[in-house]
């Protein structure tokens, strides 16, 4: 998880939702169809769509991977350290195991840990962040300090010393450890946003109407945090995937379950580098990069969905010209890619 300051900055940005777009707006004069209420606005963002497609592909592999794997990933054969061929798409290991099958079977472990950790950490983050932001006062101070402490303590070493001392480390255990150590970033961003929502008119109105605190939080505040929660979740999944793979790579939690990190661990310990067996470690790394990229793209999509000002940043020079937008310093063109019509 690369820590992305834009989320925090956007939090400040969101505090002024009524702020009119900057001058210099050149509305894209593309042929928009008006009148029809658009659903799935989010899916009109090309980055988000690309990210979702890649993520969907890996989810599919996670489900069907073990069935479509051509070989048993642990089965040895006589084809030792073979480069990629038609029989073995990604080559074989020092024991003649099929790397392609290892990657296919290992996808499930990666995805499961990533999502379990993501869901747990997001849940903790929402509870801590929203509570802190809403109650304010001493409770807020305490919870913020707690979140900041977890933010500053280096996470990977912490995960390593916890997971390294557990007697048995399975996938779910790793996910829980990652969630316990990785919730703080989401909590911090959510707290900042709740803090600004708390004093808005509609929340004040709800309070004046005598709505219960619980209802204000779930019905008035949480819906307004959806985008931040979603992007926090996506970021945590990316972080969890990286952590899991790193742990497996240094040899923690390799209890017979295949994942991409285990493949890399074996490649490293069996001197794949020195033997020139690039096919052993390149595919796993590319898969990690692809998965991470898809998550980052989804997050960009969410950011641009929330903050129209960032939308133009995704366009390259040529498409900007094509749409009649002249990039000028000091002005941010707001690109209307999708317009919501209010019924």
């Amino acid at each position, binding site marked *: 998880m*690369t*820590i*992305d*300051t*834009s989320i*925090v*900055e956007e939090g400040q*940005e969101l505090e002024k939702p009524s702020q009119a777009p*900057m001058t210099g707006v050149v509305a894209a004069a593309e042929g928009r169809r008006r009148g029809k209420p658009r659903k799935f606005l989010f899916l009109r963002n090309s980055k988000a769509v690309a990210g979702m497609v890649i993520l969907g592909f890996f989810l599919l592999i996670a489900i069907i991977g073990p069935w479509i794997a051509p070989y048993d990933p642990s089965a040895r054969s006589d084809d030792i350290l073979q480069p990629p061929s038609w029989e073995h798409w990604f080559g074989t290991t020092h024991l003649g195991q099929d790397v392609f099958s290892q990657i296919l079977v290992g996808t499930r472990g990666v995805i499961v840990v990533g999502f379990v950790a993501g869901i747990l950490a997001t849940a903790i983050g929402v509870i801590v962040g929203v509570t802190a932001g809403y109650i304010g006062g001493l409770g807020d101070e305490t919870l913020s*300090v707690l979140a*900041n*402490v977890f*933010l*500053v*303590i*280096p*996470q*990977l*070493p*912490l995960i*390593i*010393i*916890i997971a*390294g*001392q*557990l*007697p048995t480390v399975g996938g779910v255990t790793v996910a829980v450890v990652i969630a316990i150590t990785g919730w703080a970033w989401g909590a911090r961003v959510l707290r900042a946003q709740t803090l600004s929502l708390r004093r808005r008119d509609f929340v004040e109105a709800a309070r004046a109407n005598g709505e219960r605190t619980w209802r204000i939080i779930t019905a008035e505040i949480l819906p307004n945090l959806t985008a931040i929660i979603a992007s926090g979740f996506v970021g945590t999944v990316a972080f969890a995937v*990286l952590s899991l*793979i*790193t742990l497996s790579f*240094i*040899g923690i939690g390799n209890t017979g379950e295949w994942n991409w990190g285990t493949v*890399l661990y074996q490649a*490293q310990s069996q001197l794949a*580098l*020195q033997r*020139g067996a690039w096919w052993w*470690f*390149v595919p796993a*790394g590319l898969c*990690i*990069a692809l*998965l*991470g*990229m898809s*998550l*980052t*793209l989804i997050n960009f999509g969410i950011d641009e969905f929330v903050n129209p*000002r*960032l939308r*133009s*940043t995704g*366009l*390259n*020079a040529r498409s*900007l010209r094509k749409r009649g*937008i002249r*990039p000028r*310093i*000091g002005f941010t063109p707001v690109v209307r890619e999708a317009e919501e019509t209010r019924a």
Partner: protein
Amino acid sequence: MRFFLRRLGFYLITFWAAVTINFFIPRIMPGDPVSALIAKNQGRISPDAAEALRTLFGLDENMSLWDQYVQYWNLLLHGELGTSFAYSAPVADVIAGAIPWTIGLVGIATIISFTLGTLIGSGIGWRRGTWADSLLPISTFFSAVPYFWLALIAISVFSVTLGWFPASGSYDRSLVPSFSWEFISSVIYYGTLPALTIVISSISGWILGMRNMMVTVSSEDYVTVAQAKGVSERTALFGYSARNAILPQVSSFALSLGFIVGGTLVMEIVFSYQGIGYYLFTAVAAKDYPLMQGIFLVITVAVLFANIVADFIYGVLDPRTRQEG
């Protein structure tokens, strides 16, 4: 001044929290691996050292948790971190031997990466909507790749295939460590590839962060006014925009430091670079709990210290923080 005192107070709390976590982890873990290891290393560890280990890991059943906690702090404040099983030496000595390597490598590489990344980021943010934006997908890719995998690729390309740099180690083993030019140049030669890997893998975060801030800042009124006044492009870029856009960079530098350190620790493993990360790896493999915990504490303290420095710089750069306190 109040600002700094507040931050200092926060770091003290964080330090206390880290020590307390360290205290409780072995105590809530199921099983009793440490006493088994002490028994196994009976001859090699002195009775005194074994006693310290008992305190550090809470093996004295007939002592209250509070007494254990007090004694634990007492040991820590005297710099006693226990005895490493794998190296049969005090943990503090093992760490002291490793830490200069890590600080040298990670510190220099991180500073290079931060400076370069911020410069490139402000350039890209300024020239938004030109070819420079095509650098973004590339940096997205690099930010998604684990550091250690990039290290593997770097070794396979530059060491194994091209043979430009050594694949492992931190200096030529035939040399005796000294302050001679020969030794130092060997350290630089061995450190180039690891440092390059750290820079390449961490720079994308700085580029993205700075670019996004530049996009926001360059649409502020004072930048427009500066442009209208006719100040040169260069002054508007560095004197008006980048100056303000760099503030969140500094604060995110502090926050992401833990993440970068984590990544570089694993990278050291790949390069067998004799820093903290490499020792952490051997400690994990040998189930050397005292060394693991000692390393965690030292890393945390180092990160806290770097945070204090970043906060200080932030306070100097942005007078508002000092006022708000």
